[in-house]
């Protein structure tokens, strides 16, 4: 076992466990967005950033950094709070995140994080990209205007379902999650219609068709349940 310190508490971790896993096991909350149990860590949203005091206060993503012996981790300094808030504001400004007209209003991880981290306003101008909505699938709807590019759908599709329908197209601020070669989702030759991407999506980008906002509750934990139930070879 590895012994480390998180927020002044001594905690233990198995070799290979990440800072996030060790913190969660000890009941210490670190905000996350792109991380989802059952999927590989990606470390792209930067909301789980923590400081390692004895690494000169270096910032590392807790979800993708293995716990190490003697590490002294800080999860809630003023600096981290400000950084996380800025990350959130940038996420909001990048697409059209207007909660009042969103299908995920009331059960959205992005909205919950904004409440938790006290983001009462966005200092950056919204980009309002005006991307086209894809309602071609018989069961689901995809609105890229609400996408945060966390990649949970992409990983759920490739790692758990194995269909590899979703991928990242383009680069930088123009990156879009798209099915197959970029055509309409409803015409995808690889999509099995399993809906794992919809359950994994933390926001209103992927939603079930014909389900009212109030009933649009997702079950992201289903990914971990499915992977845990799988027989280990």
């Amino acid at each position, binding site marked *: 076992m590895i012994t480390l310190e998180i927020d002044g508490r001594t905690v233990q971790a198995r070799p290979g466990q990440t800072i996030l896993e060790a913190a969660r096991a000890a009941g210490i909350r670190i905000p996350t967005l792109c991380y989802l149990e059952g999927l590989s860590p990606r470390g792209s949203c930067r909301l789980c950033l923590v400081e390692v005091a004895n690494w000169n206060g270096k910032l590392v993503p807790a979800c993708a950094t293995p716990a190490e012996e003697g590490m002294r981790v800080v999860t809630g300094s003023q600096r981290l709070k400000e950084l996380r808030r800025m990350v959130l504001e940038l996420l909001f400004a990048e697409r059209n995140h207007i909660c009042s007209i969103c299908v995920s209003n009331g059960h959205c991880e992005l909205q919950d994080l904004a409440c938790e981290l006290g983001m009462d306003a966005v200092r950056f101008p919204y980009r309002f990209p005006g991307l086209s909505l894809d309602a071609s699938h018989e069961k689901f709807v995809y609105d890229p205007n609400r996408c945060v590019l966390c990649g949970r759908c992409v990983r759920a599709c*490739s790692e758990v379902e194995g269909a*590899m*329908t*979703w*991928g*990242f*197209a*383009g*680069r930088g601020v123009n990156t879009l999650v*798209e*099915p*197959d*070669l*970029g*055509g309409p989702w409803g015409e995808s*030759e*690889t999509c099995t219609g399993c809906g794992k991407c919809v359950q994994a999506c933390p926001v209103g980008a992927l939603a079930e068709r014909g389900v009212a906002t109030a009933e649009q509750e997702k079950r992201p934990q289903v990914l971990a349940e499915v992977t845990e139930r799988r027989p280990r070879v």
Partner: protein
Amino acid sequence: MPAGIEARVAELLQPYAGRPSELIQALHRVQGVLGHLPLEVQKAVARVLGVPPSQVHEVVTFYHFFRTQPVGKHVIRLCLGTACYVRGAGRVLDALREELGVDLGGTSADGLFTLEGVRCLGACGLAPVMMVDEEVYGRLTPGRARDILRGLRRG
């Protein structure tokens, strides 16, 4: 999909068949011969190499080098990197735009030229630089750039 294209791609990619790790090389090769990578070709590449279509789409859209639209007979790659820019690439670009009547990424109405901007061709000593197909032209001025295009137009 036209059977011809699939067979052509399969023939071109014979050395890479069933080797997903060769995706970039394979796309290079196909584009080198066919000029661009339309959807049917991307689909065929995915099938021959054994990679999901989404992955081909990711690579094709990520790298600026890959094109999904047909290009003109000649492809102009004007460097807009720092050194070339400082030495006047902006004015050369204006001249090319005017001469061809297109913006960056566009193809002239006569189908002869496609104008592309790139970042650094590795010849900063010759700044400002452009490549037309495989030929490198250095120390450009707006006037020289126009002359080069006019020369190519005459054939």
